[in-house]
């Protein structure tokens, strides 16, 4: 990056390299473009959903270097050099990973809008804590809102997944 004394311009295009779902990707973005919009618009990874765009709903949650992050509160330029994982990276196209399978079997979701954010947050939880208690599951999911299910079926799905597949989907 250039040093002090340079002229700054708000509409310059910045080139970024990052890894998305294991694949190296190149982007040319305005600084103001969020990671969520970069994933959806530039990489056509529209599985990452945008609800509130200010960090409250959790629909846009992705993993950045293994940690859950709000992609609406991260600029694409901040992800330079990072490893990003999205819902599309959980299992090969057309198949379900063990976490997804468990959630499917437990009717965890209804409309599906919140689903990608929940699945990424749960993936992070199970990676750190492969056999969480129900209280730990609920604590980890406080930052993800679902307007359909009432959460019971989601928690049930996670409990099933943690029994079935330690380490997560």
């Amino acid at each position, binding site marked *: *990056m250039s040093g002090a004394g340079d002229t700054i311009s708000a509409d310059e295009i910045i080139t970024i390299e990052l890894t998305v779902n294991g694949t190296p990707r190149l982007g040319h973005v305005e600084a103001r473009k969020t990671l969520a919009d970069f994933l959806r618009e530039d990489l056509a990874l529209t599985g990452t959903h945008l609800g509130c765009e*200010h960090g409250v709903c*959790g629909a846009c949650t992705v993993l950045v270097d293994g940690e859950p992050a709000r992609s609406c509160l991260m600029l694409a*330029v901040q992800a330079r050099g990072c490893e990003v994982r999205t819902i599309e990276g959980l299992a090969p196209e057309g198949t379900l990973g063990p976490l997804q399978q468990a959630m499917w079997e437990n009717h965890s979701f209804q409309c599906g809008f919140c689903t990608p954010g929940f699945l990424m*947050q749960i993936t*992070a939880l199970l990676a750190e804590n492969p056999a969480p208690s129900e209280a730990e599951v609920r604590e980890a999911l*406080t930052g993800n809102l679902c307007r359909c299910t009432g959460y019971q079926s989601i928690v049930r799905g996670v409990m099933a997944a943690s029994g079935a597949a330690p380490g997560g989907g």
Partner: protein
Amino acid sequence: MKPPPFAYRAPESLGEALSMLAEHGDDAKVLAGGQSLVPLLNLRLARPALLVDLARVPGLAGVDQRAGGLALGAMARERTLERSELVRRLAPLLSAALPFIGHPAIRSRGTLGGSLAHADPAAEIPAVAAALDAEMVVVSAGRGERTVAAKDFFSGYLSTALEPDEILTEVRIPPFPSGMGVSFMEVARRHGDFAMVGVAAAVRLEAGYIAEARLALTGVADAPVRAVDAERSLLGAAPDAASFAGAAQAVAQRLAPRSDLHGSAEYRREVAGTLVRRALAAASGRAAAHNLQGDLEEGAIP
């Protein structure tokens, strides 16, 4: 909504970052974890011309023991501190408060320095910094380094002693007396929301009486409140319900919290008193347990 246009730099040294701030002054903003700043950009409540991202400046995210206390880099992430065994040992009050901040995905990006610099009146970390007498190390290109005590750092609603050309680099937490019991409690509308009222308490007992007490509150004023009078009133007192109720009353009487959508001033004052009472009781209980543990280890109790 989407952020307005701005320029972005990610300097790779502190010197470079400082000269950018010196050059662009009020037009520039430091970007740390972005968990407070990016929402403001998305809502277009902030319109900086330049963002100076500190993520690539080396040496700003350390979590180190120094002189018996802690030296914490401003860019240390809240989640990293929450997981740190060293922090649990040397600043247990901070460890107790961190899980109350937002949600895991917020804490995995949000930083210690960002929370202190943003100084939300309902944030947890500023109250902990006040209770622990933390010192903020602040650097600028023109004036070099200075150290600001927590009691001088928070100057009002969302405002601190930081000048636009300054960067908060480190937070120093003095050695924490052994045998201190701690407690952090808060009431929020929903789990993970900013506190309506939060209380940080620490108590040390000697021979069954209170030898030291720390008490700080968040959410009840424009800046964190350190309840020094109540602390003093507890010295030498028995750690019992009457002492805690007295302290709670002393705190509540002096508060003039805001009323807002989430709760009236009267409600906040009531909750503050209740939480002070409960947090002091919990901290005292833990202090008593520490002392018992210490006695056992020293063989004083066979």
